[in-house]
């Protein structure tokens, strides 16, 4: 087991390297150089001289590979650069915005896990009943619904009309309800589908029939079913978390929550490249880590994978 973990972690390193290269290249995609952009942000007149000076300042006059190495070195020292706009360390800005996003994401994950599981189980137990059919309609619709539209509808209904929840800002649990619900609805469909289909497959599998034939009581059979559905459940959850983090971008913007997503969009408008770059890197690394965790979990829990 430990060997497997070490092997997987080692395999990730080239992946992380590749990801960092992509992030680095992305910044240089822009036709106008970062130096020019910095000047424009700070409303300094753009002259060739000024560009040269800024380039030297930002270290952009060195060859690309050197720039990349320097950037990696900085990363490993937790130095993510300085924001073009606010001149604050990017690391600080990210850390400041992180708790809000975590709060939002995990509230949404909780909703997805609880309701997704409940709906999935009920659909499988009462397969093809009215509840199941209704749930499937809900799943299809929620997967097709633009999350920003849902957000607007919920804001109108619960903030403006009924005035139960605030429509923006962050104070107390009340302000996280609508954003978390919106985010959850957007991603719950995949989750319910996985739970429902796994349970249906398990229900009709031979080993459950044999378990009944052997005379196991309902509780013991339930134990068998749950044991087999846990793995898909965990994997689905692990895959949803980073997607959720990415989905916070829209939600935070609509609800005015000062999290990473809003930071990123603001940075895009302001062309604050260091922030955009660090955000992208952060989410990508999160993605990779959660994928890894899901794989390790599966390896630990499914004896069929241990050859």
């Amino acid at each position, binding site marked *: 087991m430990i060997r497997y973990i070490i092997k997987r972690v080692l395999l990730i390193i080239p992946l992380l390297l590749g990801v960092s290269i992509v992030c680095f290249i992305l910044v240089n995609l822009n036709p106008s150089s970062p130096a020019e952009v910095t000047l424009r942000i700070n409303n300094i007149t753009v002259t060739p001289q000024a560009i040269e000076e800024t380039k030297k300042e930002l270290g952009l006059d060195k060859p690309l590979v050197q720039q990349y190495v320097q950037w990696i070195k900085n990363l490993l020292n937790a130095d993510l650069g300085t924001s073009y706009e606010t001149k604050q360390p990017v690391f600080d800005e990210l850390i400041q915005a992180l708790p809000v996003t975590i709060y939002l994401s995990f509230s949404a994950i909780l909703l997805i896990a609880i309701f997704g599981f409940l709906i999935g189980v009920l659909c499988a137990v009462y397969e093809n009943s009215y509840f199941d059919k209704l749930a499937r309609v809900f799943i299809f619709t929620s997967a097709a619904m633009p999350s920003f539209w849902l957000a607007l509808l919920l804001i109108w209904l619960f903030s403006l009309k009924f005035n139960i929840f605030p429509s923006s800002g962050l104070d107390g649990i009340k302000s996280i309800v609508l954003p978390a619900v919106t985010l959850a609805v957007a991603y719950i469909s995949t989750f319910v589908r996985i739970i429902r289909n796994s349970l249906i497959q398990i229900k009709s599998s031979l*080993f459950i029939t*044999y378990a009944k034939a052997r005379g196991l009581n309902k509780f013991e059979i339930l134990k068998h079913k749950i*044991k*087999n559905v846990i793995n898909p459940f965990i994997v689905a959850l692990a895959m949803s978390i980073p997607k959720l983090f990415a989905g916070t971008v829209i939600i935070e913007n609509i609800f005015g929550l000062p999290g990473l997503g809003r930071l990123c969009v603001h940075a895009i408008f302001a062309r604050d490249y260091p922030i955009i770059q660090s955000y992208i890197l952060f989410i990508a690394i999160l993605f990779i880590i959660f994928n890894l965790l899901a794989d390790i979990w599966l390896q630990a829990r499914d004896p*069929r994978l241990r050859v």
Partner: protein
Amino acid sequence: MRYLKIENLSIKDNKTNEILLDDISIDIEENTILGVVGESGSGKSLLCKTILGLIPSNLNIEGKITLNNKDILNNSKIIKDNFCVILQEAINAFNPLYTINYQMLESIKTKQSKKEKLKICIKYLRKVGLKRCSKILKSYPHELSGGQLQRVMIAIALTQNRKIIIADEPTSSLDSINQKEIINILKNLKDKTIIIVSHDLALISHIAKDIIVLKDSKVVEKADTKTIFTNTKNEYTKFLVSTQENLSKEFMSCLK
């Protein structure tokens, strides 16, 4: 004296109105082996499932199944106390995430300590011809072969110590060596009533005292083994027997 009687059993699919078992009546003597033969789809497995109370809810049952004059249709308590099962595909019959040990122990319903149950498991694993029983107990289903798993199934049926064993094609997914050994194990069991379902006449002839032939959801013949193979009056049975004979003839001639 235990006495299993199936009276006018009919099963209909509520949705398609298809008749899956048509007026089946069978008497089974205690401590005998009954063979049920027929083509695929004739209703053999469904018959077993009905006796065990394992059929899906969209099927409509009519008729009676009694054991010692007690009605057992859907009476799960009596079924649990008197019946045990050996199924066809042993490879898929076990939960892949639990060890054999766990699954064997949970099948023994008596109030004994874990140690005693373990002893019983090992005793019967040995009886069905498995070696290195402690290793087998620690294994997961995917680590054992089809033959081994099938024997584990028989061992479980034996540990449950019930009077009636229902074996639904217990050897069809095995090679011929394993087939012979398993059929012999079943044949040598004492004090058990066995209903064995198969599409393989040669196998049944080796082990069963009486045979029932099913065709298109109906019973077309009930007789003892000797009659079926030598003196049958039923056209379909004759056809089955002669087909089997032709196949075996080819095989025998290859050996010469």
